[in-house]
């Protein structure tokens, strides 16, 4: 029997007891989640603080996080298909997402109507063509969902198991990373839970990103702009 520490990092070839391997994997996945989340926090909260130096400085934590994510995929031998860049389950994922998107859209319309907000579907960057803005929104959503679902959700499943514990971790992380914007934090918390739950059933990033972009469009078009504060998060919320 080999005596090992819970996280045996020195000799990956050493024989490990089964329960030790499982713990090691969970701990490593938890560490990966914390590391990528901390990079995003540094980027979000450093941008304005570092304005006296250069805003380009935020590229450092982002680049480190991307490097870590790529290395993590290599370590765990995950393919693009495993991560969710695939089309075979696209319509199945989209059908599961249709109801939550419809409910969210109705909820937004209801809240907007209740608060007396004028509904304007051209409010999301009015200087751009709507189609272009939706395309840009999709690209940004795909990048976010790749990190959120393709990395954080998958690591959360290793750390906490498939199901509600990992779904809660992903939803809470997505919400907390949108602090201190209160409306956006609540919306992303709820949306994060839905996306995480559906991704665990049908992992397809394209479907999740399309609904992300559509829901952002609906939120921006129906809810009070003063409350959303241009969807600013991190320290930028205050400026």
């Amino acid at each position, binding site marked *: 029997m080999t005596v090992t520490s819970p996280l045996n990092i020195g000799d990956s070839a050493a024989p490990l007891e089964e329960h030790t391997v499982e713990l090691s994997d969970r701990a490593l996945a938890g560490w990966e989640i914390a590391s990528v989340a*901390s*990079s995003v926090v540094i980027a979000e909260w450093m941008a304005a*603080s*570092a304005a*006296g130096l250069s805003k380009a400085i935020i590229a450092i934590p982002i680049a480190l996080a991307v490097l870590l994510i790529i290395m993590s995929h290599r370590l765990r031998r995950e393919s693009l298909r495993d991560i969710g860049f695939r089309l075979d389950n696209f319509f199945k994922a989209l059908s599961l997402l249709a109801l939550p998107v419809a409910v969210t859209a109705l909820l937004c319309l209801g809240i907007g109507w209740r608060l007396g907000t004028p509904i304007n579907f051209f409010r999301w960057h009015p200087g751009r063509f709507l189609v272009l803005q939706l395309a840009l929104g999709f690209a940004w959503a795909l990048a976010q969902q790749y990190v959120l679902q393709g990395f954080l959700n998958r690591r959360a499943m290793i750390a906490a198991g498939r199901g509600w514990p990992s779904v809660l971790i992903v939803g809470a992380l997505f919400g907390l990373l949108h602090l201190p914007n209160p409306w956006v934090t609540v919306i992303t918390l709820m949306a994060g839970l839905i996306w995480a739950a559906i991704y665990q059933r049908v992992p397809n990033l394209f479907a999740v990103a399309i609904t992300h972009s559509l829901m952002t469009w609906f939120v921006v078009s129906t809810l009070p702009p003063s409350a959303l504060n241009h969807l600013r998060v991190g320290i930028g919320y205050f400026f």
Partner: protein
Amino acid sequence: MRRLSRGTFAQLLIGKSIIEALLVTVVAAGLFLATTNPKLHGWLDQADAQTISGWAVDDGNSARRVDVQLFIDDKFIEQRAANELRPDVHQANRAQDDWHGFVFKTPTLAAGEHEVKVYVLHSSTSATRRTLQIVGNPLRFRSGL
């Protein structure tokens, strides 16, 4: 492609954490230096119902007249240059010339105790920020009205 070992990956995680910790430290120190001038010195000598006076100097460029702002009970009252005659500051080797004093005429205030604070204005090198650094300690006085 060679398989990445768990040990190498853990080292990558540790390295990333160290780089980010250093980055945050550099940004924090840079922000402090951008918003604070440790060479600004001065003192709030006196405050009463008639006048509020003291002196302020930028040791990094003591020929410059720095701007000071008066706050009473945390409300902004007035800004002016610290360019009044203060030969004692020069004689004490705190400035290169006699003209670094400030005197504010105390405005009409409600009866009771008031707190006076004077701040030196500091502009960051990129001129994107202006910050206030307190001069000496706050003083309290009673207004008789």
